[in-house]
């Protein structure tokens, strides 16, 4: 039996089989709201109105005709496109315009360069796979349960849309693009290339793309009909070509200073080292810092509280886009917790003071009339920062050097550009001893992709880097849990 679903606010009707899951139907039509938990019913973020009653799309079974109202799209996230400004002499693998992509779990960024390496246009978008979950694990789960092709066409569709956008902005036809260079985390790269991420689902999480490769780009996307596609290799199953791009662009591999590069995206990847030796690790730290699992969590989009100040003993918020606060993004959350620690309202174990307000039986701190931080939000941040800080300590151990000997910290990625170093060190996401050495470097992964497009030797260098960087599997280190537990405290 087939039912009709009338999507009222879009003026659109779709058909669904009896017993179908509403979120699946909406995903199929490309209309689904974001579902950070991947459709398990735990994140409560895919709410839609069904026949006037608000309910979760992922928990709704189609049993008859229904009228659905989708939530208003929550403004486009501000996607960081500015790179870290390194340049290279031009020696591309093929003549023509150059395209460089960084495929993140949450966002995709695209740059169009001319034959001199000058940026003509840049564009970014939220990863269209968002309805399949906020993190790579949910995406892998969906891919392995038979929706691989949908995830692949979804991501290719995103890259196609961005290509059209930048070409239109620059006024050039897409068939004059000669090189397309792509970095991303291993999961995104594999989904983009159509390689089933089976390897990422169980130990030893071995990477599949272990060497750089070149192929006709039109095999992946017909729009790139005259280009070569450059694929940058991965370091491990969870430290990918995007991290290689960061190392390439920051030039940390040829610097004598001991550099800590931290790319906090949906996952947190880190590299510590200098020209002699480098180690890398990854932590599943990001989703909380990007708003997943946080009561009023959201991306850094208009309406998000991005910073919190403390003055006169009270918290004051600033909101992106000067509009009423709709939620809070990672940087705001970190600021707020740093100040709550200063005020003594959160103890070293992360417990909110008994004198806090209570909502639904949970201790909370109000930031505005409608937006508050819950005890559970603080717990989520503790786990994220505990993993990152533990990773830093263990990488330093591996190199046999104390954390205080680190000469500089480079924060890559959109999130890194929003953060206040004082707050980051106050909550212990980064070791306090490194305050004063922290510098944001923008979308370094994207800059790495550009370098690989501009110069064939830079592209070849990615193979050397992958060989040189030693991967550290944190979960297998006997000391990890101790460091993780210690670093969860404030």
């Amino acid at each position: 039996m087939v039912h009709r679903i009338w999507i009222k606010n879009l003026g659109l009707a779709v058909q669904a089989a009896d017993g179908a899951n509403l979120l699946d139907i909406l995903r199929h039509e490309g209309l689904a709201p974001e579902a950070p938990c991947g459709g398990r019913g735990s994140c409560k973020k895919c709410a839609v109105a069904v026949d006037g009653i608000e309910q979760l799309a992922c928990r709704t079974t189609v049993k008859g005709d229904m009228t659905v109202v989708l939530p208003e799209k929550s403004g486009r996230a501000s996607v960081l496109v500015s790179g870290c400004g390194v340049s290279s002499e031009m020696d591309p693998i093929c003549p023509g315009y150059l395209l460089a992509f960084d495929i993140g779990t949450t966002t995709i960024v695209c740059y169009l360069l001319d034959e001199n390496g000058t940026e003509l246009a840049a564009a970014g978008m939220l990863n269209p796979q968002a309805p399949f979950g906020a993190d790579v694990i949910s995406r892998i789960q969906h891919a392995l349960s038979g929706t691989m092709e949908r995830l692949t066409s979804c991501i290719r569709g995103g890259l196609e849309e961005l290509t059209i956008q930048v070409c239109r902005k620059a006024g050039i036809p897409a068939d004059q693009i000669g090189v397309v260079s792509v970095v991303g985390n291993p999961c995104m790269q594999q989904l983009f290339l159509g390689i089933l991420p089976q390897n990422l689902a169980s130990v030893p999480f071995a990477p599949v793309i272990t060497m750089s490769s070149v192929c006709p780009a039109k095999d992946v996307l017909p729009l790139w009909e005259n280009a070569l596609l450059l694929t940058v290799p991965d370091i491990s199953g969870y430290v990918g070509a995007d991290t290689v791009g960061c190392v390439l662009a920051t030039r940390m591999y040829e610097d004598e200073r001991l550099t800590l590069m931290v790319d906090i995206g949906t996952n947190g990847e880190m590299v510590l080292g200098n020209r002699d030796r480098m180690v890398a690790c990854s932590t599943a730290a990001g989703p909380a810092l990007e708003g997943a699992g946080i009561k009023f969590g959201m991306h850094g989009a208009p309406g998000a509280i991005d910073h919190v100040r403390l003055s006169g003993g009270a918290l004051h918020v600033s909101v992106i886009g000067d509009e009423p606060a709709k939620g809070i993004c990672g940087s705001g959350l970190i600021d707020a917790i740093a100040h709550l620690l200063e005020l003594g309202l959160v103890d070293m174990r992360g417990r909110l003071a008994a004198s806090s307000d209570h909502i639904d039986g949970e201790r909370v701190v109000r930031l505005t009339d409608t937006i508050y931080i819950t005890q559970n939000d603080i717990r989520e941040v503790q786990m994220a920062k505990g993993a990152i800080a533990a990773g830093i300590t263990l990488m330093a151990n591996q190199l046999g050097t104390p954390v205080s000997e680190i000469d500089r910290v480079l924060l890559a990625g959109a999130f890194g550009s929003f953060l206040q170093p004082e707050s980051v060190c106050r909550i212990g996401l980064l070791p306090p001893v490194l305050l004063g050495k922290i510098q944001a470097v923008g979308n370094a992964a994207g800059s790495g992709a550009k370098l690989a497009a501009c110069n064939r030797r830079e592209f070849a260098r990615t193979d050397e880097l992958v060989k040189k960087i030693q991967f550290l599997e944190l979960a297998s280190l006997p000391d990890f849990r101790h460091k993780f537990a210690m670093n969860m405290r404030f």
Partner: protein
Amino acid sequence: MSNLDEAKLLTLAEELRREGCSRLELVDMLLVGMRLIGLRYESGEYFIADLIMSGIIFRSVLGLTEAEGISVLSKGRSALHTDILIGTVEGDIHDIGKDIFSSMLLANEMDIIDLGVDVSPEKFVEGIKKYHASIVVMEGTMVFAAESMRRSIQAIERAGLRGQVRILLGGSGIYQEAAHQAGADGYSSDFVSGVALCKRWLEQAGDANG
């Protein structure tokens, strides 16, 4: 113990041992602290970090190590009979959740055999035969865990042991529906309810045995 002061505890334990305190008495004392920690965790005062620390301290005071991937966390009633067999399933190496859960079960006076991580379906089967466990707890953090759990449960069925054990699934790699589909008896998304469920099952098993 309940204040999680590792250095102080180690010194104290050493003194007690010199004074002729038996290992069993020491375990009893530590368990009092572990129970308090469990209660503080339930009330929200303590956090996972504190549970992890309590497990580390417990092991270090007793000088326990994970020998050959199997550690016996028990008061030593009998080497060949245990209440609960626990392990992180094949393909997964995350042990933090498993170890916290083990500590909490122990604090609630249940005997445990810990099979370690990346435990194959065959090892679960062997473990049940060898230790006559009445509950099997399978943990998994990774995406692949649900499938691995299903295979382990099938292996237990094929070995004709399914009727002897109750199977509890936990960890962030699994959720209610998947646990049901995998053929488990129970699923738990948090430590506290998981411990309560194990307790109830053991009581039921005890009643049935007379």
